[in-house]
């Protein structure tokens, strides 16, 4: 069996004047490895290759990258799912500044996450026990709390590419709705008033790239629609 042709984005700002693609031939011995395993094989030959990784099982969200044009987590993406014509092109997540090779600067992504105040706000006195919630209210958080902040969705979103400083992005908005939908959160109106400008929520054009790439199978577009409904209900 022929070796897998891998084209890898390389950039070291300290030594390279511009990014370039480096070609590798990797012998997978016919196994359907995960893309992260493939990167580890490459790193055995070239120790200068840089990428983030941690848990290697799709929980930490460290190794989000662009594989043959589609964002995803390298650790849970089998080669059979992304390789076309025995070729694989690996690039960093699009739209964010590159620190080195596949490592991107996530500052803008985290700034938008911080902006939506991703924590429970409740101005009533703290009870002696936990703040209780009915099973029905708890069900409303399913599909929202599971986000691991890998940034695959936001960096697949053209609206986030063009306005990462103003548009919250699918990941931030999914998390924003997680707190808007929480029966224990009392800052709903305050949260909504921070979102009604033309950029924060409404720069979403509903193209659903976020839904297509989310490694956890979440649906930020639906959450954004719910935020719009809440804004509308609040303002009419």
């Amino acid at each position, binding site marked *: 069996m022929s070796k897998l042709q891998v084209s890898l984005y390389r950039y070291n700002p300290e030594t390279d004047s511009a990014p370039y693609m480096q070609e590798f031939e990797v012998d997978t011995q016919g196994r359907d490895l995960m893309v992260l395993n493939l990167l580890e094989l490459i790193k055995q030959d070239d120790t200068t290759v840089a990428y983030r990784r941690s848990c290697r099982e799709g929980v930490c969200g460290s190794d989000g990258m662009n594989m043959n044009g589609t964002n995803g987590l390298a650790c849970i993406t089998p080669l059979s799912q992304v390789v076309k014509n025995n070729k694989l092109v690996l690039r960093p997540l699009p739209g964010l500044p590159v620190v080195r090779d596949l490592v991107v600067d996530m500052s803008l992504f985290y700034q938008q996450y911080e902006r939506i105040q991703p924590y429970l706000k409740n101005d009533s006195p703290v009870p002696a026990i936990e703040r209780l919630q009915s099973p029905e209210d708890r069900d409303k958080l399913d599909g929202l709390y599971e986000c691991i902040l890998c940034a695959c969705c936001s960096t697949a979103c*053209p*609206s986030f590419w*063009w*306005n990462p400083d*103003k548009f919250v992005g699918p990941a931030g908005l999914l998390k924003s709705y997680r707190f808007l939908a929480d029966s224990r959160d009392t800052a709903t109106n305050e949260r909504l*008033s*921070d*979102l*009604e*400008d*033309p*950029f*924060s*929520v*409404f*720069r979403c054009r509903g193209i659903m790239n976020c839904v297509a790439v989310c490694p956890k199978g979440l649906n930020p577009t639906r959450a954004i629609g719910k935020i*719009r409904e809440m*804004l*509308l209900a609040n*303002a009419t």
Partner: protein
Amino acid sequence: MVTNITSFSRSGLSDWIIQRASAVVMAVYTVFLVGYVLFHPQLDYATWSGLFQQTWMRIFSVLAFVSLAAHAWVGLWTVTTDYIKPTCIRVATQSVIILAIFVFLVWGIQVLWGA
């Protein structure tokens, strides 16, 4: 909070609802006009002119023009803020767009009442 003085309504929520409502108006107007042409295979100038003499048709048409103007403003404002990053070029482009929309709107109303 991001504010924007050149957007149509200054509010993302208003812009969004205006864009959707205006899209519905334009869709209904288009379906009506296409339907009218289809149901009048022998359409002549007198029939067409008679249609636009009707007050309800003029109101309907002005509504469609205003919808088109608002829709275009919201949509093109979005496009310019996405793709044109230098402020002076963006503001100049937006000014030209807004001026053109205004001219076309007044011109359209003049055509409606001038025939």
